[in-house]
C-alpha cells in the first residue's frame, strides 16, 4: 500500500515491456508450483523404477485428467471471486447422463457427449443464477446446489450400471507416436485455457474477481460475467466426467463427488488466490498433477499403510505452504 518513491522505477523500453506482456499470458503461475512439480516428479521417478514404462506413463496421465479438468473449472470460478463446491456433483450428474445415453453404443456417443456437456452448462447456469440473481454467498450456495445435482444423478442412474463403448475406453489408454492420449487431453485442456485467457470474457472474469465495484463502474457486465464463469466451470466438469467415464468404462451415481475439495487444493497449490482476480489455470493443472503424484510417492516409498494418510496430509499442507511463499514475498515488499 505504500508507493515506491517516484522515479525509482527503471524505465523499461516499450518493446521489452511488450514482450513481457506477451510472456505473461503463457506464464505458469508460481515458480514455487513448478519447482514442486519438478521435485515431486524426481522423487517419484527415483522411487518407481518403471515410471517411464509405457503403461506407467499412460496410466498415470489417465489418472490425472479428471482432477486436472475439474481444477481448471474451479480456477475460473475462483478467479471470478467465487468458489464452486458443486463441481464434483456436476461431474457425477454429467457422467451418469452421458453413460445412460451412450448405453454402450459407439453410435450414441456424439449425442451422449453433447448431452453431458449440456448438463455441465445447465448446472453452471443454475449455480450462476443462484449466486448472482439470488445473491447468495458462493460457498454455501454451491454447497446447497450440490445436493440438487447429486440427487438428480441418483434419479438418472439409481444404481451403478451402463457401459461406455470399448473404443472409448481403450482409445483413452492408447498413445499417439508414443504420446499417451491422456497427456494429449491434458495438453488440450491447457491449450483451451490459453485460448480462453485471450478472450474478453476471461479478462472480465479477472476484473470482477479483482474488484467487482470497479469493474462494474468500468462498464464490465458483472452479473453476466459471473454467470459465465460458473457455466465455463460446468463445461470443464463435464470434460472431467468424460475422462472419468474413459477411466471407468461404466456409470456410478457417486463417482465424482469427492473431487470438489481436492480441486480447490489444486487451485491453491497452483498459486491462484482464493480472493479472486489473481492466478491462472496452468498452475492448477500442475497443482492437480502434484497432488496425484504425492499419493503415488507415499505409496511407492513404502510408508506403512497406517501412516500413509498422515504422510500424505502433511505433504499436502507443505505444498500449500510453499505455494503461498511468492505471495508472501509480494506482501512483504508491498
Amino acid at each position, binding site marked *: 500500500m505504500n508507493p515506491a518513491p517516484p522515479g525509482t522505477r527503471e524505465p523499461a523500453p516499450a518493446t521489452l515491456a511488450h514482450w513481457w506482456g506477451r510472456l505473461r499470458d503463457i506464464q505458469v503461475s508460481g515458480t514455487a508450483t513448478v519447482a514442486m512439480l519438478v521435485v515431486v516428479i524426481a522423487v517419484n521417478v527415483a522411487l518407481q523404477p518403471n515410471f517411464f514404462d509405457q503403461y506407467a506413463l499412460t496410466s498415470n496421465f489417465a489418472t490425472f485428467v479428471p482432477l486436472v479438468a475439474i481444477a481448471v473449472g474451479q480456477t475460473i470460478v475462483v478467479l471470478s471471486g467465487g468458489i464452486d463446491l458443486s463441481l464434483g456433483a456436476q461431474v457425477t450428474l454429467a457422467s451418469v447422463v452421458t453413460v445412460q445415453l451412450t448405453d454402450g453404443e459407439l453410435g450414441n456417443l456424439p449425442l451422449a457427449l453433447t448431452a453431458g456437456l449440456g448438463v455441465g452448462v445447465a448446472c453452471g447456469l443454475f449455480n450462476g443464477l443462484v449466486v448472482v440473481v439470488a445473491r447468495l454467498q458462493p460457498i454455501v450456495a454451491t454447497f446447497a446446489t450440490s445436493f440438487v445435482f447429486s440427487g438428480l444423478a441418483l434419479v438418472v442412474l439409481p444404481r451403478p450400471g451402463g457401459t461406455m463403448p470399448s473404443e472409448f475406453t481403450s482409445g483413452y489408454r492408447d498413445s499417439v507416436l508414443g504420446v499417451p492420449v491422456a497427456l494429449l487431453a491434458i495438453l488440450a485442456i491447457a491449450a483451451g485455457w490459453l485460448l480462453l485467457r485471450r478472450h474478453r470474457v476471461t479478462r472480465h472474469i479477472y476484473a470482477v474477481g479483482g474488484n467487482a465495484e470497479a469493474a462494474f463502474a468500468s462498464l464490465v457486465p458483472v452479473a453476466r460475467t459471473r454467470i459465465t464463469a460458473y457455466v465455463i466451470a460446468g463445461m470443464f466438469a463435464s470434460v472431467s466426467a468424460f475422462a472419468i467415464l474413459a477411466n471407468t468404462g461404466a456409470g456410478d451415481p*457417486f463417482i465424482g463427488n469427492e473431487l470438489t475439495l481436492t480441486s480447490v487444493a489444486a487451485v491453491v497449490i497452483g498459486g491462484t488466490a482464493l480472493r479472486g482476480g489473481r492466478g491462472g489455470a496452468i498452475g492448477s493443472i500442475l497443482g492437480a498433477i502434484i497432488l496425484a503424484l504425492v499419493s503415488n510417492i507415499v505409496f511407492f516409498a513404502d510408508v506403512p499403510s497406517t501412516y500413509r494418510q498422515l504422510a500424505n496430509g502433511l505433504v499436502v499442507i507443505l505444498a500449500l505452504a510453499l505455494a503461498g511463499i511468492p505471495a508472501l514475498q509480494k506482501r512483504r515488499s508491498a
Partner: protein
Amino acid sequence: GGDDGSNGGNGGSGGDGPFTIGLSNGFVGSEWRTQMVDGVTEAFEEYQDEGVLDQLVVESADTDVNGQIQQIRNLINRDVDAIIVNPNSETALDAVFQEATDRGIVVVAVDQAVTSPGVTNVVIDQAEWARISAEWLADQVGSDGRIVVVNGISGHPANEMRWGAAEEVFEQAGVEVLTVADGGWDQATGQQVMSNLLATYPDLDGVWTQDGMAEGIFRAVQAADKLDEIVISGEARVGYMRLWNDARDNGFSSIGVVNPPGGAVSAVHMVVNLLQGNEFAADRVDGNTVHVPIPFTVDTNNFDEYWPDVENETDAYVLDGSLTKDEAAEYFD
C-alpha cells in the same frame, strides 16, 4: 519374486512363485475393513513362511473410485501377481481391472461383487444374507405386522441387492413396510434416523436394518423404551451383542447374521490356488462369482455359544469366519 517385474506377465498362468499379491481397499471409515486387512495380512504371513508368497502390498485409504483406480494402477506398476480388491464401485472399476487382467494379473473382488468378467468375485451371497434376517423378522412380527426399514445407502449395489431380497420376503409374508430410510451404514445416523421414525410411526412392530447401524437403532428404540414392543433385526457385532445380552433378561430377542470380513482370507486361499494354476470347479462358480458360505448366524438360542469368546473384543469387532486352506481347495478341481 514379483518385485523384479519378471513374472508380472505370467502371474496368472500357474508356475513357480513366490508371488506378490496386492490388496486395494478404498474405505477405512469402518472397523470391518480394518479386520479384513488384518485377516489378509495374517493369511499372507502363513503363506510367506511356506515360501508361496513373498510380498503383500497394501493400498488402504479413504478415497473415491478415482482414488481406487489410482490404487490399482499403482499395484499394477508394482508388478504384483494378484490383486485382492474391496471395490468402491460395482461397475466403475471394470476398465482398470481390464488393465490388470490384460497384464496377466489375477484379480479377485471381495465383499462387493463386480461386473467385470475377468474378475472373480469371492463374496457371500448378499441376497441370502438379507433373506435370513428378513425371514426371521417377518416370522416375529407375523403377517400384516408393521415395520420400518433402515437401509445403508440407496444406490449402493450391496444395499440394493440386500433390500431387493428382503423386500421380496416381506411382500410374501404380507408384512407392511411403512417406510424405508437411509442410515448410511453409520451408527450415529442410524440412531438419529430411527428416533425420527419412532416419533412419526408410533405403533411399530419391528425394524429391519443392515449391519453397521443396529447398535444405533437399538439405542433409539431403547430411548423410546419400546424394546418390548419393537423387534429389531440386529447384527453380529460385539457392540450390538453387548446391548442384546443386557436386554436378554427382559426377553429381548434378536438376530445377527455374520457378514464376515474373513471373506478376504478365503479369497487369499483362492488367489494362491489360482496363482498356482488351479482352475475353479465348474459347479462352484456362477458366472464370475464364487459364493463363500455365510459362516453362521447368531440368534437367541445359540447366543451363548458365541458371546463368551468375543465378550472382551472391542465393540466394533465383527464376528468372523473364513474358509480354511483345505476348504478353499475344494473349490478347485
